[in-house]
C-alpha cells in the first residue's frame, strides 16, 4: 500500500515548536523535523532520544589509551629496552612519565576519529549520498514537519490536515510514496 506523507512547512522555529507541542498533546505522531539549524528543545517534544555517541567516544578513547600503553610497553620495555645514562628501563611504570604525552595524544586521536566515523555512519552522511530533505529551502530558512498517515491511523487525512492547519504553517504538501 502506498504511504501518504504530509509535509507542513513553517517559516519560524518557535512556531514549529509550539505547533509540534500542540499536535503531540492531541496524540499526533510527528515523524520527522527538518531544519536549517538545531531547534533547541524540539527533541523531547517529537520523541527523539538523546544520542549515545558520547558513550561511543568514551569507548574509543579507552581503546586509544590501551593501544598506546600496550604499544609503548612493547617497543620501549620488552622489545628493545634503551639504556639511557644507566637509568633502569625494565619497567613500564618507572618510565611512565615519558609515555604520558603520546598516551594522551593517541587517546584523543582515537576518540575523535572513532566518534566522527560513527557519526557519519549513523547519520548516513557519506560522500556522494543523496540529499533527503523534502525541500531545498529547509537548509535556508524553512522548517518542515513530516507526518505519516500510517503512524496516525486514529485520524483521517482530513482530521490530521485540519489539526495541522491550526499551527500556522506556510505551506502544506502531500506526497505518496511506495
Amino acid at each position, binding site marked *: 500500500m502506498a504511504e501518504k506523507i504530509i509535509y507542513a512547512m513553517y517559516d519560524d522555529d*518557535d512556531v514549529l515548536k509550539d505547533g509540534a507541542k500542540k499536535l503531540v498533546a492531541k496524540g499526533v505522531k510527528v515523524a520527522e523535523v527538518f*531544519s536549517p*539549524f538545531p531547534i533547541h528543545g524540539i527533541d523531547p517534544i517529537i520523541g527523539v532520544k538523546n544520542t549515545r555517541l558520547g558513550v561511543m567516544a568514551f569507548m574509543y578513547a579507552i581503546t586509544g589509551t590501551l593501544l598506546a600503553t600496550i604499544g609503548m610497553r612493547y617497543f620501549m620495555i620488552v622489545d628493545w629496552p634503551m639504556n639511557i645514562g644507566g637509568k633502569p628501563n625494565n619497567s613500564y611504570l618507572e618510565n611512565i612519565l615519558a609515555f604520558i604525552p603520546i598516551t594522551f*595524544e593517541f587517546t584523543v586521536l582515537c576518540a575523535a576519529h572513532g566518534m566522527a566515523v560513527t557519526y557519519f555512519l549513523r547519520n548516513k*552522511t557519506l560522500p556522494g549520498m543523496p*540529499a533527503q530533505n523534502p525541500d531545498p529551502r529547509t537548509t535556508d530558512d524553512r522548517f518542515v514537519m513530516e507526518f505519516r498517515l500510517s503512524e496516525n491511523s486514529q485520524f483521517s487525512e482530513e482530521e490530521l490536515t485540519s489539526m495541522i492547519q491550526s499551527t500556522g504553517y506556510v505551506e502544506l504538501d502531500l506526497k505518496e510514496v511506495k
Partner: protein
Amino acid sequence: MHKESAIREPLILGHKTYTDITADVCKPIEDKAPKMWYILFTIALIIGLYGVGCIFYLIGTGIGVWGLNKTIGWAWDITNFVWWVGIGHAGTLISAVLLLFRQKWRMAINRSAEAMTIFAVFMAGIFPLIHMGRLWLAYWVLPLPNQFGSLWVNFNSPLLWDVFAISTYLSVSVVFWYIGLIPDFATLRDRVKRPIPKKMYSILSFGWSGRAKNWNRFELVSLVLAGLATPLVFSVHSIVSFDFATSVIPGWHTTIFPPYFVAGAVFSGFAMVQTLMLVMRKAMRLEAYIHTRHVEYMNIVIMVTGSIVGTAYITELFISWYSGVEYEAYAFINRFSGPYWWAYWSMMTCNVISPQLMWIRKLRRSLLFTFIISIVVNIGMWFERYVIIVSSIHRDYLPSSWSMHYPSHIDLGVYVGTIGLFFVFFLLFARFFPVLPIAELKTILKSSGESYKNAPDTHGHDHADENHNTNNH
C-alpha cells in the same frame, strides 16, 4: 530560548532574517570573484611556487643550503615551525575553548579561524619534513616494524611526541572543521544553480538533510570534540616547548616554557586571525557579522595573553640571575646585550609593550590600530622564537666555536614561500567555502541579533509556558 541582557551589544547587526544570513554568506561564493581576489591569488601563488622551488632545490642539494653551521644546527627552520604552529593555535582555541565557555561571539570567526589553523599547521609541518633531508623517508617517524633489527622510534623523545601531537592536532582540527562545514555545504548545495558547483557541494555535503536526530548528534559531537580539542590545544604547544625545555642548553632548560609557549601561541594566533578577519569582513561585506565588538573581544584576548607572555619574559630574565647559574645568566645577558640585541628588543617592544596599548578602549575598538598591532605582534612572535632558538645556541660553552647565524636565500625563500602558500589556501577557502558558520549563526540570531534582541517581546505569553522545558539549553 536563552535571553541576553539588552545592554549587551548585539552580535549580528542590522535587521537580518534567517535567509539574509544564508544570502550574505553565500553571495561571495555565488558571485564572480572580484578582480582583487585574482590579483592577490596570483601574487600568493607566485610567492608560494617560489617557495616550492626553493624546497625542491633544498631537497635536491641537501640542507647544507641553509645558513646553518656547526654551532647553530637549528635556526630558521625550527623558528618558522614554531611560529606557524603557534599561529595554528587560535582556530581550535576559538572553536573549542570558546564553545565550552558558551561564547557566542566565536561564531563570527570560528570557521575561518579554523581554516587558518589547518593551513598554518600544514605550513608548520613542511619544516620538520624538509629538515629530514630525505623527504621520502618521512614515514620513519612512525613505529613501523623494520629490517634494522627491531629498531623503534624513541618514545622518550619530545621530538617524537611532537610527531604524535601535531598529527593528532591537525587531523582532529580537520574533522572538527569539516563536521561543522557539512550543514553549510548542504545549504550551498540547495542554493547554487550551476550544475558543476551543485555536484561538488552535493558531494561535499555528504547528503546532509537536517533531520532532528542529525542535529541532536551534531550538537553532541561538536561538544565532545570541543572537550577533546581543548586539552589538545594546550598539549600541542606544551609538547613543542618540550623540544627545548627538556634539553640542557642554557636559555632553553626552563620549566616555565609550556605555559609561556601556549600563551604565546594564542597571542600570535589571535593576531593572525585579526589580520585576516579585518580584511575579509571588508572584502566579503560581512561587517554585520564581524564588527567592532568582535574585534574588541579578540583584542582583549591578545591583551591578556600578551601580558602572560610579557610576565614570562621578565620571570625568565629574573630567574636566570636568581638561579645563580652563570651559564644561564650569561645566556640572558647575551640575549639583550649581545650581537642579537636588536632581535631581543624587537621582541620586547612588539610583544610586551604593544598589547598593553589595548587597555585603552578607544584603541582596542579602532580597526586600523588593531590591524597594525596584529601585524606587529606577528613580527614580534617570530622574533621571540628566533631569539629563544638562535641566541641560546650561538654562543655555547666553548668560545672558539661561537658563531652567528646568517640565513641563506633558500632559508628566506622557503619561509616567504610558506606565507605565499598559506594565502593561496586561505584565498581558495574564502572563495569556495562558507566563511561563516551559517547554521550556527542562525541559532544565535534571536538571542543576539540586533532586530530581535531589542524588539519588544511580542511572544511574551508563549515564552512563559516554554521556560520549564527549554532552559536546559
